[in-house]
């Protein structure tokens, strides 16, 4: 049989089977339970996809099993939630972070000059060491007496009081500018020292052309400007954010979570994972340790408690909307979908999941970067041989994957309890999703996530209806995975080994 025809026939068969299963479930369960279960299955599926998409991309391109993905998902939820209810924390921390990064990012600008510097050999080794030590000392000095815990602890107040009244009541005072100013300055100097040390002054074997210096300076100049702005508006920005409309605030929260995820992911890749590409086995252990640290850090800052994020006003008003239009006008908490009452926020999660899938698809198929990524999944060596800076692509993909995870986190924030372990279950299911869909395939991740979500939802439904054990829905994931792996060991959409 011709391979094309074979493919067509299998597609047809699968389509028929899927339709038959759906029809069977519909006939068996009846209209309303079917719609309700399907919708909750889709909600779960979108959440799984948000975790699995990043995992799948990262694994497909870099062969990195990211065990910190669940922790990063959780971190995204925390960051978004912080901006939503307690912007003091983020705005209080922002100047310090930008100041340090601005200093470090000077590195590509000064490197061409530093490596041409005539230095005796003994200084080539000792000078960076001295610079590192000085940088650490300055770092410690900059954070001395800086009360991070108090900035974070306002969140606990915010969580217990209702937001209906005056939201400004929870703002805690920050350090006045007259006291605060030296911290960013010290951090910039510290960052500059790190940049100085990492560009290896005097080492002749390093390579750095003196071209495009202005272009290379742009990020650090931008960050410098941002540092100044962030330092000046440190105290007023949280008030401005809290006075905003809740929906807008939520939008900003999503943006902040994604931006944070992207930058944090890039940071992790460059500092922790890049040195380990020569020993791939240890990357797994590194991410495992990282998840430990992130989880404990979050517990240190916000205590090991579960928080409830207040839903944005668009999803908060009581009452049932009859249609989509009515919901958008009134912001009801539930909506009527052909006779089924369904929470609007869950609908939003489904939309978010599908939107993410569309965005990922566009990036992967239409952009040059996406082409490089897909080519890299197929054959990384070839891509490298064609003269593409694979290192940078790796960093981008890791950062992008983490950003997807943090987006999932903030998306899940308003309807899951926000707690340090909220990502772990999703990480496990994300792994299974990736295995089902095939490593490195975002379409596979999407299909796998929906299958798993449906399995969960219908498992719960049948467990309730036929009075089976609730473990049925949990076990369904493993059963689905085993079946898929027995039929296609490389996953549904995976490449053949």
């Amino acid at each position: 049989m011709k391979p094309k025809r074979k493919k067509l026939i299998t597609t047809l068969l699968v389509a028929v089977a899927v339709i038959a299963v759906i029809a069977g479930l519909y006939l068996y369960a009846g209209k309303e339970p079917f719609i309700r279960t399907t919708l909750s299955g889709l909600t779960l599926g979108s959440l799984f996809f948000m975790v699995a998409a990043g995992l799948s991309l990262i694994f497909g391109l870099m062969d990195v099993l990211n065990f910190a993905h669940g922790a990063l998902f959780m971190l995204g939820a925390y960051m978004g939630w912080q901006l939503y209810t307690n912007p003091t924390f983020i705005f209080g921390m922002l100047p310090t972070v930008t100041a340090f990064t601005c200093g470090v990012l000077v590195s590509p600008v000064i490197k061409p000059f530093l490596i041409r510097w005539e230095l005796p050999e003994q200084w080539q080794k000792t000078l960076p060491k001295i610079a590192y030590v000085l940088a650490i000392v300055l770092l410690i000095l900059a954070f001395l007496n800086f009360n991070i815990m108090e900035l974070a602890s306002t969140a606990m107040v915010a969580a217990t009081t209702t937001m209906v009244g005056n939201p400004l009541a929870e703002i805690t005072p920050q350090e006045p500018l007259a006291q605060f100013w030296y911290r960013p300055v010290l951090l910039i100097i510290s960052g500059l020292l790190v940049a100085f040390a990492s560009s290896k002054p005097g080492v002749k074997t390093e390579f750095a052309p003196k071209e495009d210096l202005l272009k290379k300076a742009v990020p650090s100049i931008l960050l410098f400007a941002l540092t100044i702005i962030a330092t000046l508006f440190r105290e007023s920005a949280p008030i401005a954010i809290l006075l905003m409309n809740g929906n807008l605030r939520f939008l900003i929260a999503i943006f902040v979570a994604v931006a944070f995820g992207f930058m944090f992911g890039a940071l992790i890749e460059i500092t922790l994972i890049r040195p380990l590409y020569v020993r791939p086995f240890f990357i797994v252990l590194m991410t495992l340790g990282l998840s430990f640290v992130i989880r404990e850090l979050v517990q240190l800052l916000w205590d090991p408690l579960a928080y409830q994020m207040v839903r944005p006003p668009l999803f908060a008003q009581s009452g049932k909307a009859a249609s989509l239009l009515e919901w958008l006008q009134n912001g009801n908490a539930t909506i009527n979908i052909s006779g089924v009452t369904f929470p609007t926020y869950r609908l939003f999660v489904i939309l978010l999941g599908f939107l993410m899938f569309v965005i990922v698809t566009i990036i992967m198929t239409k952009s040059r970067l996406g082409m490089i990524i897909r080519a890299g999944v197929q054959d990384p060596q070839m891509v490298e041989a064609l003269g593409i800076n694979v290192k940078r692509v790796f960093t981008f993909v890791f950062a992008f994957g983490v950003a997807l995870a943090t987006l999932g986190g903030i998306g899940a924030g308003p309807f899951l309890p926000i707690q340090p372990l909220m990502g772990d279950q999703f990480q496990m299911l994300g792994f299974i999703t990736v295995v089902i869909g095939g490593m490195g395939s975002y379409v596979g991740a999407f299909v796998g996530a929906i299958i798993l979500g449906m399995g969960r939802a219908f498992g719960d439904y049948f467990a309730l209806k036929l009075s089976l054990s609730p473990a049925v829905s949990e076990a369904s994931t493993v059963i689905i995975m085993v079946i898929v792996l027995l039929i296609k060991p490389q996953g549904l959409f995976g490449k053949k080994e």
Partner: protein
Amino acid sequence: MVNRRDAIKKNKLVSSMKGEGTLLVLLVVLILFPFVMSFITGTGMNEGVTKFWQGQLIIFFIMAVFAMSYDLLMGFGGILSFGHAASFGGGAYTFALLMKHVVPPITHNYRITIGSVNITDAIVLIVVFLVVLLVSILIGLLFAATSIRLKGAYFAMLTLALGSAMHMLVKATDFHKWTGADEGLHGVPVPVWLNPTQNRLTVYFVSLAFLIICYLLMKRMVNSPTGRVIIANRENEDRMRMIGYNPVTYRTIAFVSASIFAGFAGALYSIWNTSATPTMVSAVMTVNALIITILGGMGTLVGAILGAAIMQVISQFFYTWFGARWPLVFGVLFILIVMFLPYGIIGTWRMKKHDLKQFFEQGKRIIAQKKTLNQEEEA
């Protein structure tokens, strides 16, 4: 010639003794420990501080065996399994289930005696341990079966999923009557002479003996031809297949043996706790073993023992030093170890040992040269 060969043999013997010398000293220390401790503190063998530290060491012995069995898989076989806790928990649950639900009716109704000595308990215990062995072998075979078709990350994921399936099975509410679901099995009836509260010293020596036996067995296994093939499987599977060994067979051997050791460790752990809880089957347990192995050094059995000791100390003292958030310090430490000491403590020591020796010898040579120079000058 003969003399020389004898000398080499003797040297070999001496060097092998040297390797085990520290371990032998440690063994003597561990054997004497309860007595010395009770002598120093003036507390009885089965009370106070002495009893507490015996307990800590018992956990250390058991975790050391579990970590060694994991090392057998990961360090020697190059198999990254995230479901190894299934064997450990499987052993623990098998033991606890049998002791709690199957054994009491039997001992109640039947009695086996030799002359006038009642040996029912002993026979029953042996049979229970045989069943534990059987279950561990089956779990090992199950995991090995998955590794036939899958490799790399897929395999790691599947083991993770299989492990979590075990966890689900243990936690399933359907078997509440048998396994106690979320709470686990508590109050497992253990024979009086093995009861950790009444006769802790016996349990101490039993687990110490268990550790020694397992260490010797695993060492023998690693150094045997089979063990060599398992290590070769880690290094290059294709080449091994080309030479004519079947990788699947040897992977299965690695899995089954690791599973047996882990299963027995689990059974002993359930004796020590007189319970079997879902945590013993969860991924946390596997990750613990993984961390211990990395800490001490992959591919070294001694490393797993050392790592287990360090973990025990850390979990004892870090809480008092750093408060409730001690895992943060530990996590940072772990990241640093992965970054800068990838071969663990023992592995790095073994690598640097040679350099250090050379360094000292160079120093010696320089001193000797100076001496001869001085002598020449004097002359």
